[in-house]
């Protein structure tokens, strides 16, 4: 069997080879830009220390943006949605069983009675 890279989707196709070429081109461009960079950079010297308007550098742990601080805008925009969704996930076993029976009842009506 030939190792054909092209995936036929019925109404189109996909060939990862073109994506690979794009990645290679992008990497070459990145390298060219990198090669134009500052040659005098010295690792482990004062050069690498951040300058924050003369203020002392905060601790490493203090500057890391933690997971809880990400996507606050998304969460705020959808707080009504989450206010309804999160409480359903109560963690209570009897609630889980209630959902099981409820879905069974709905399907019973849909499939058996209608």
């Amino acid at each position, binding site marked *: *069997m030939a*190792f*054909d*890279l*092209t*995936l*036929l*989707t*019925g*109404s*189109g196709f*996909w060939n*990862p080879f073109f*994506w*690979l070429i794009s990645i290679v081109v992008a990497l070459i461009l990145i390298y060219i830009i990198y090669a134009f960079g500052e040659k005098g950079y010295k690792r482990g010297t004062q050069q690498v220390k951040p300058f924050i308007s003369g203020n002392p550098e905060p*601790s*490493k*742990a203090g*500057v*890391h*943006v*933690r*997971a*809880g601080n*990400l*996507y606050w805008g*998304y*969460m705020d925009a*959808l707080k009504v*949605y*989450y206010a309804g*969704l*999160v409480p*359903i*996930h109560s*963690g209570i*076993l009897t*609630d*889980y*069983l209630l*959902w*099981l029976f*409820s*879905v*069974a009842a709905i*399907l*019973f009506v*849909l*499939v*058996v009675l*209608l």
Partner: protein
Amino acid sequence: MITDFLLHHTPALLVAVPLLGAFLTPIIGRISPIVRKIWVMGTMTLTSAIAVLLVYLVYTRGTFVYVFGALTPGLAIPPDSGGIPIRIIFTVDPMGAFMDLIVAVVGFCVILYSLSGDEKRTGLHYFYTLFLLLITSVLGMVSTGDLFNFFVFIEISSLASAGLVAFSVEQGRAVEAGLKYFMISTMGGIFLLFAIGILYGQYNALNIAMIAERMQFTSLDKIALVLMVVALAMKCGAVPLHFWTPDAYSLAPSTITAMLVVVSQASLYGLFRFVFTLYNLTLNYVTIGWVIIILGVLSMVIGVTMAIPQKDVKRLMAYHAVSQTGYMLLGVGVGLAVLGNQAALDTYGFIAIEGGLFHIINHALYKGLLFLTAGAIIYRIGTRDLNKMGGLGHSMKYTMIFFMIGALAIAGIPPFNGFASKLLIYESVYLFNPLLAIIAMVVSILTLASFVKVFHSIFMGPTLPEYSKVREAPPAMLIGMGILAVLIIAFGFFPQLVVDSLVAPAAHALINQGSYISAILGGA
């Protein structure tokens, strides 16, 4: 001689080897930890090799019928049985073999990883006993052609899974999660048993092919169908029956979580097998197709939106597992909804089924990898809390690369495997209903957003003082993750090869009820 034995009894060996391995583990494991490791690894390797052999046989020779206790393994209907296949029969068609392959590959990688990843645990004799029992049960579920036998294997998987979820008894919450999983699985098992009882009462048979041939789709059959769909949708974690998944997935050891993904997929296989092979065109395929599609859409949307705000890395991944199950339900559901419309089936329905099935194997690979990377991180830093993580990319470079591969694959970013299966689903589902395809694409974008957050939280930023001495994961864990990562890339670069050689035969076997029945009943 040995070759003949292997070739004739492969399906039996497929469950006998891990079963024997499981029961001997508590005895052999007492010799020494090294012997236990060799024994467990050897058992899993042999099991995987048998599974691969079986897959090869099925894909080259056709459906493998194995009758337990018969004079010859292929004698499905004894002359004095009145035309009824009375014995337990394994019927491994390409669909079953496809699932066997998933269990073999993921099981092997997980056990390799586990040799280092779980070595700090106590009671490892019991851990590996339950693990091998879980492997046995899943292989049995996807190989059997007998309804009651399927129920027995699903019960074994539930018991073994519940024990493994609760294995970290020092964490009370793990025991609670295990109990919840056990209770909800038991209820699902009762539903399934009741459904099987209804079918047995009507058709006087337990063999899937026999019942399929006699199927009338009476009101009782409809009740049995509802009970089966609900039980298996719950076991595969479809919304709104998914509530157990974040609890069980997040609190189980990471190796077990990776296997729970495969267990869920075996339940998904059961759902597809019963709908397509047991009922096929006798059922109202439009209604049931839409039921599966709606379950899929709910799973995709609610799974991903619940994942985004999570701060426990494994709980977050558990919700993503729910979301990804939605894609499989959507693809196969669309195929079912047009099962009776040959033109639509040929145009996009069959490709939708292919996409759904391709996504099953892809999901097993990348979700397994992601849970293993999460396990490697937890193994080194001892917390699952994303708020406490950061800067680990400096010290765990290989784990970071594996995580990136898994994350990009689950988000459907080319050229990884998740993109290939999602593309098949998008394009075929779009022809069925454009809105469903758009929802699927939006869910992929949200998935990417979620994993960008996880990647940043775990690996980016300066090295945190508390993790300054963290080292890379042990070699065995890296090898286990590496094999899965290589497969993800390979499946992404050669998707058509995978579709042609593995997925398309499985999809044909799934929808072609007649060939399944004739494999058992033949000239009966």
